[in-house]
């Protein structure tokens, strides 16, 4: 690794800090920047002291904006790291966090909860998570044959499971009355407006653990991305390693999807940006940098969702609107880039 890459990496790894702090200044409540700064400084200096400002300032900054920014950070990490890992496992740059059916499964779970169950906080999240994970398990066991799960079978099984779960989702949409149908549709668009400390607490442990698993396996990801034959020849237990990676990525993606709905393109675009900037597909670098840049990407996208209009835009729609054309630009400019 050259020193240029090291500098770039260090810079990229620090980027979430200014993004997080800067985003505290953005929002619908008219808080003057200098006051915001003072409130933040005072909070950092003595977190539990009684503040001289109106209570509502603290509520806006620390009960509404901060948990939302942190959830965006967690989600950015989850989506881009799972995307990068799966791209390694599948040896295909066009794979994202949802290739194994997680989004379709979570969508179905959420729809069942919103359409048929009473609105108790947390029910939607639990069902979305369980169904997301269920979809992954179905995909995995459908693809498994004689103790092996070839990548091609996984892709095909993922497509089939996604199709089945989506069909079931359409069925539920059709039988849902208009009011609740609106809830299902909004959920599917993906939004961080639900973010509170409770959602942060719900997602942080699982995503944190899964991230650590991937982080410590990142060199094995390089081996997995060489292809089965080569990996076997290096004496790696590819079945076990692959299952661990798939499990961890699913844990990340479905935890986050369960609270925020389906937010697309982050897992696809961010790892590509990293590979382009650093010029290597080496997962030892790509994984940590994807985490950091993914966090920044989703934080900034959500800043837009909160501030472009004074009403709420679904951030899932924004990431697609930003992500898809950007991805096209990358492909055109790089002609396939480091993957070719």
């Amino acid at each position, binding site marked *: 690794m050259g020193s240029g890459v090291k500098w770039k990496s260090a810079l990229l790894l620090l980027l979430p800090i200014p993004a997080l702090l800067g985003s505290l200044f953005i929002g*619908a409540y008219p808080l003057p920047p200098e006051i915001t700064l003072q409130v933040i400084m005072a909070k950092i200096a003595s977190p539990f002291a009684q503040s001289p400002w109106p209570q509502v300032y603290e509520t806006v900054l620390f009960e509404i904006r901060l948990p939302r920014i942190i959830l965006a950070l967690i989600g950015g990490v989850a989506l881009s790291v799972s995307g990068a890992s799966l791209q390694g496992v599948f040896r295909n740059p066009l794979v994202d966090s949802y290739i194994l059916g997680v989004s379709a499964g979570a969508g179905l779970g959420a729809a069942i909860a919103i359409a048929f169950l009473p609105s108790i906080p947390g029910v939607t999240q639990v069902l979305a998570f369980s169904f997301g994970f269920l979809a992954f398990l179905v995909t995995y066991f459908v693809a498994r044959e004689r103790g092996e799960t070839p990548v091609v079978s996984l892709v095909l099984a993922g497509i089939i499971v996604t199709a089945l779960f989506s069909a079931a989702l359409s069925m539920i949409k059709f039988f849902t009355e208009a009011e609740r149908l609106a809830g299902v549709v*909004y959920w599917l668009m993906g939004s961080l407006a*639900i973010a509170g400390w409770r959602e942060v607490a719900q997602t942080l442990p699982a995503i944190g653990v899964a991230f650590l698993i991937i982080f410590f396996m990142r060199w094995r990801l390089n081996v997995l991305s060489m292809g089965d034959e080569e990996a076997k020849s290096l004496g790696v237990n590819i079945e076990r390693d692959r299952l661990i990676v798939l499990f961890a990525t699913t844990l990340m993606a479905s935890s986050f999807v369960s609270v925020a709905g389906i937010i697309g393109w982050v897992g696809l675009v961010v790892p590509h940006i990293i590979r382009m900037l650093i010029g290597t597909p080496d997962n030892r670098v790509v994984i940590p940098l994807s985490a950091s840049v993914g966090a920044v990407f989703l934080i900034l996208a959500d800043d837009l969702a909160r501030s472009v209009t004074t009403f709420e835009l679904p951030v899932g729609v924004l990431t697609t609107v930003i992500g898809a054309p950007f991805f096209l630009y990358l492909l055109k400019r790089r002609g396939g880039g480091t993957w070719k």
Partner: protein
Amino acid sequence: MLDDKGLTKFRAVLILAVLVLSTIGASFLAIRSTQSVALNPTTLVDMAGRTVQIPSSVDRIVVLNSYWTEILCTLGAADKIVGIDKYSTSSHYIPSKVRNLTVVGDLFKGINIETVIALSPDVVIMDYGYGKTGEIISALEGLGIPVVALVSRNFSDQTTAIRTLGKVLNAEKSAGDLAGFMDSRHSFLLSTAAWIPASERPKVLICKLDVWQERLIYTYANSTYGTLAEDLGGINVALRDFPDQSWPKVSMEKVLAWNPDVIIVLGYDNASLASQLDTVSNSSWNQLKAVKEGKVYTILIGSKVAGAYLDWGPRMILGEMQLAKMIQPEYYANLDVSGAAQMLFTQFYNTGALSGS
């Protein structure tokens, strides 16, 4: 597989079948048209501005919106309805014998035209202007079934629709009475509000908290209920900020910035209202003026449960009175919502029992 000879035979049978069926169909239509001419039809202009010819005596009605079903029943036509839409089955304000009639579908997801034909209606009553209404109207017209198209956008559409349905049923007298009952109260509400000075108009937020997820707030801006808040002497914060949107979705931060004086939460049933109030009791909401001063109110909307008034149809006037009392309790102090409800239900719904709680 069929051989050549078999295929020719098959074709011949097919052609014959088509010929027979179309002859039957054509003569059926011919009989229909001679019948309706013989009955000396009434001509009326519906709310879409279409000139419609209907039989002078309408005995079989298919109705595709629950509020029009409700109005038909208040005008004494419950026995003439032969087919309904899906939403009519869940209305508390429609007699159960009507709720149990054949369901032909609904205007969002489509209706089964064959079922409608089988019911041989003299007229179909339905909304126009959204969803699948356009296709349905032209399909029914193509089959020679008259359609009276109505619309609900605001209060005055309700009384216009009531009078139009009065013409359809030859019940113009009772339609006039019902429309009059509503109009007189409506104009009283508006003329009272017109006197209220700007300084005494509170900032009002009308919202639902259970449409998206708990923390995203679904507000009523440039919508029927949203504009009502202004007409009844309030300042609708959502409408002022989003004049071009019907139901903008905002975050808690926006609500804190608005800091409304009065919050009105809408819900289709009591469980929904209770869970929404539960949301309002959390810490961020506690900083709002309306919450601190105990000015958070709930209104049941729709037609699912007893006591729900704010809805399309005759009950809308009761809902307006409820809203008025919440926004301007002093100016509307003498307004008696339950008395008016009692009157409406005994006079037009043939039972006082419907008024419920």
